């Protein structure tokens, strides 16, 4: 009877740890996954800005909105945005992507905003527009219109030595 009781408790503890670990992994995935999301250009912004529509999956709406803002900046940095409609392709500011040399800088810069820290990327979000959300089994599928200060972001990356200036050779 005692052994059965211990086995049952061990099973529960094991299950709880697995769920916790899974949740942690998912958070960590969102935290450092700078590539897996969908993004589209929705128009030509004012000089130096880009108008983007970003889709993300998240458990909570607030979390998803923050992730969409962060991913809009990450898209300008690493992926670039494909041409769409009449809008020409937006090139990536850091085309080499994440490397061992810049990983630490970008993990800090792109850290999602929580109550205590993160959110350094937010200074390059000029404004956010329409938001759409759809509940599914895993949480929410959220889309958000984001305006990114692309030129300021590029200039900041150049000043931090993360991107090259057009003038680099001369």
């Amino acid at each position: 009877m005692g052994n059965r009781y211990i086995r049952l408790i061990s099973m529960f503890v094991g299950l709880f740890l697995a769920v916790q670990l899974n949740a942690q992994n998912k958070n960590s995935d969102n935290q450092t996954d700078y590539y897996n999301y969908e993004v589209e250009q929705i128009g030509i912004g004012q000089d130096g800005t880009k108008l983007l529509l970003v889709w993300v999956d998240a458990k909570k709406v607030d979390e998803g909105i923050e992730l969409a803002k962060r991913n809009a900046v990450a898209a300008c940095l690493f992926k670039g945005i494909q041409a769409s409609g009449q809008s020409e392709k937006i090139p990536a500011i850091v085309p080499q992507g994440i490397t061992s040399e810049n990983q630490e800088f970008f993990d800090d810069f792109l850290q999602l905003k929580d109550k205590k820290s993160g959110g350094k990327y937010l200074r390059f979000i000029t404004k956010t527009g329409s938001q759409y959300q759809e509940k599914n089994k895993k949480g929410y599928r959220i889309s958000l219109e984001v305006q990114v200060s692309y030129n300021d972001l590029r200039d900041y990356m150049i000043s931090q030595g993360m991107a090259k200036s057009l003038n680099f050779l001369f």
Partner: protein
Amino acid sequence: MKKIILSLTFVMMSVVLMAQAKKPTIMVIPSDAYCARNGYTTEWVDENGTKNTVSDIANIFKQDDVEDLRLVISELSKIMADRGFALKDLEQTLKSIQQETVEMNLLESSSSGSYITESMLDKVVRTAKADIIIDLDFTVMQKGPQRYISYNMRGLDSYTNKVIAANSGVGSPSTSAPVNLLLEEAVLNYMDSFRAQLMAHFEDMSRNGREVVVKLRVWDNADVDFESEFDFEDDYLELTDIISYWMEDNTVNHAPTRTNATATYLSFEQVRIPLYKERNGRMSALDARGFANGLRSYLKKEPFMIESKIYERGLGEVWIIIGEK
């Protein structure tokens, strides 16, 4: 001793890092198609009686209806200046050339009253030119009540004639937006992609050297040509082959392409020259003329003893004319 070596290494590295390559000039020039469509052309009849039509770039900014062109050039200039690459302005360059001509005609020496010598070649050379040309074409199109912009922009290397960046497309149609707003939108739309292509060109330059064109010709009174033979590396070789070896030895890729080789004319393309050379213990920027000077000096020595003249067409093209200065 270790300290001295370390210090010397540091100084040498600093010098290399501080060296800057020669910056190419960039100028926006309206394309021939744009000039023809808008009637900015001039006609002339050559000695065979053939009528030729050419773009009248020199007078384009004197026309009344070039506000759109001015606006696009200004927008492009603003964006490029923001990127640390101020464009050479075509309109101002044309004015400056005209003003210079007036001043040169009036300037005389105070002691003897003599005028400045200007050969026909000097006159030809004194034109609006740049190392990279942005060949620009755009049209305001109409579809029913809507207007939209068809836009085409190409960055061309003036010497190799290679397209180093290109963008084209049509803008969003609009019934209400004024033409200048549509044009501004078109420039903003294409500029980031254009900049990225220019960047790729400069990165290629930093890895593989600057691409230049070297042409060699012979003065008509010269007693030597490219088929003249010399005792060279235990063999008798024609000057063409000797010069080809020199080009291979002194280029970054060691594989320039010899595109023409006759007794009187030799040309090399895809000549990748280093961006810097060491001079007086420091690295200084190298251009096509600096590179060709090496060949001129080589030909002047034993066993060739050939005098030659260098004619510089710009940062990326140079001619060497052998026989005399």
